[in-house]
């Protein structure tokens, strides 16, 4: 199986794309997908292509946390429109597009947009995954991403609450047959974990063994599909 991991590269994290690629190759990944909020400003992106034996794909994260917060503060609901336009502008340029659900608005907008590949839902007790979001994700073939970094970052009761929320979201994802992805949410080369370690962590968190393997290989399959030219659903230009 060829496993892929989602990472953020410098300047949005503390490791360059080539360092992340080097570490990921040592850990046994077939490729990494760099998902920065501003993919045009990745530091020495071409240096990462020089690392042999690993596929380095530049994707994008369509997050508008700042825009959403500013609009909420001003009493407007324009964050949704800003996110939609950002998704539209990034889709044609990058083969992988993900959205982090910082707010309910962002989650709903992303779930209803077929241009998005993956939605990372924050597993928070106060904002669980809703049936409407799960149904919309199913209709638009979105994969649901689970960021396992809180498992490393948190200890004690916050982690217990996060695990409870994750199990709740996972039940809903299984009910609606959504595709699952897991990631360590690496913002440094020290945050990367090997596929086996990530699978062990996911299984402790409540995933099943088959699900974790599929979850780690799904990003690679999606990138492969998005890189091909499609004239319409099921019609490929060769």
């Amino acid at each position: 199986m060829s496993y892929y991991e989602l990472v953020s590269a410098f300047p949005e994290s503390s490791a360059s794309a080539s360092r992340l690629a080097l570490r990921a190759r040592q850990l046994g990944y077939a490729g990494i997908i760099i998902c920065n909020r501003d993919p045009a400003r990745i530091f020495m992106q071409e240096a990462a292509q020089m690392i042999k034996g690993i596929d380095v794909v530049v994707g994008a994260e369509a997050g508008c946390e700042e825009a959403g917060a500013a609009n909420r503060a001003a009493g407007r609901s324009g964050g949704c429109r800003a996110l939609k336009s950002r998704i539209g502008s990034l889709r044609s340029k990058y083969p992988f597009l993900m959205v982090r659900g910082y707010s309910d608005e962002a989650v709903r907008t992303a779930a209803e947009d077929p241009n998005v590949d993956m939605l990372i839902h924050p597993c928070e007790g106060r904002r669980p995954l809703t049936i409407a979001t799960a149904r919309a994700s199913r209709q638009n073939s979105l994969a649901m991403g689970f960021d396992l970094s809180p498992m490393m970052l948190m200890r004690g009761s916050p982690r217990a609450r996060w695990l409870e929320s994750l199990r709740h979201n996972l039940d809903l994802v299984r009910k609606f047959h959504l595709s699952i992805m897991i990631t360590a949410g690496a913002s440094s080369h020290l945050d990367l974990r090997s596929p086996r370690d990530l699978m062990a962590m996911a299984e402790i968190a409540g995933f099943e063994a088959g699900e974790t393997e599929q979850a780690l290989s799904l990003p690679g399959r999606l990138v492969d599909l998005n890189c091909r030219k499609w004239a319409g659903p099921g019609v490929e230009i060769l």
Partner: protein
Amino acid sequence: MRSRLPVLRDRRRYMAFEIEAEGELSPKDLMSEIHSSQFSLFGDAGAGQNRLKLICFDGRRGLLRFGHRYLKETRATLASIRSVRGIRAALHTKGVSGTIKCAREKYLPRLSKICAESDGRRIELKDVSGCIIRTHGVRVDLCPDDRSKSTGSDTQFLGLTSFDLSGGHEDADGTADGL
């Protein structure tokens, strides 16, 4: 605990691991962090069933003993460690074996001397500048002048490679590869 009959003894496995950290770590600190992670993740009852013991640790690679039925739990325990006494670290499992001898032969080769240089060489590039802390092969750890460059990930240093530094800025001292 020693059992009366050898057949009743718990079967053991040995996990070889490698640590990547921003500083020097002692075996005592590492073991206390591993125990803390295990207690936090599985509780007292879980930790009682799977007793972990550090067999050896040379500062970079080590060997950990665990119960043969708890491979997944032990992997998760090591993977959920993020820092050891405030020093950012990452533990990666190299492999698992049934005997100490076999684990040493397969996964713990004789250590080569690590080139740890901190001779005050500087990097001056358009996007990043700072002092080199250490280099391991093509890997370079850099202490940035602007400390806000590594905020959000709790690391002291920026992780770069020599590929990032090729074709360096004209103000960079040293060779043409930017070092």
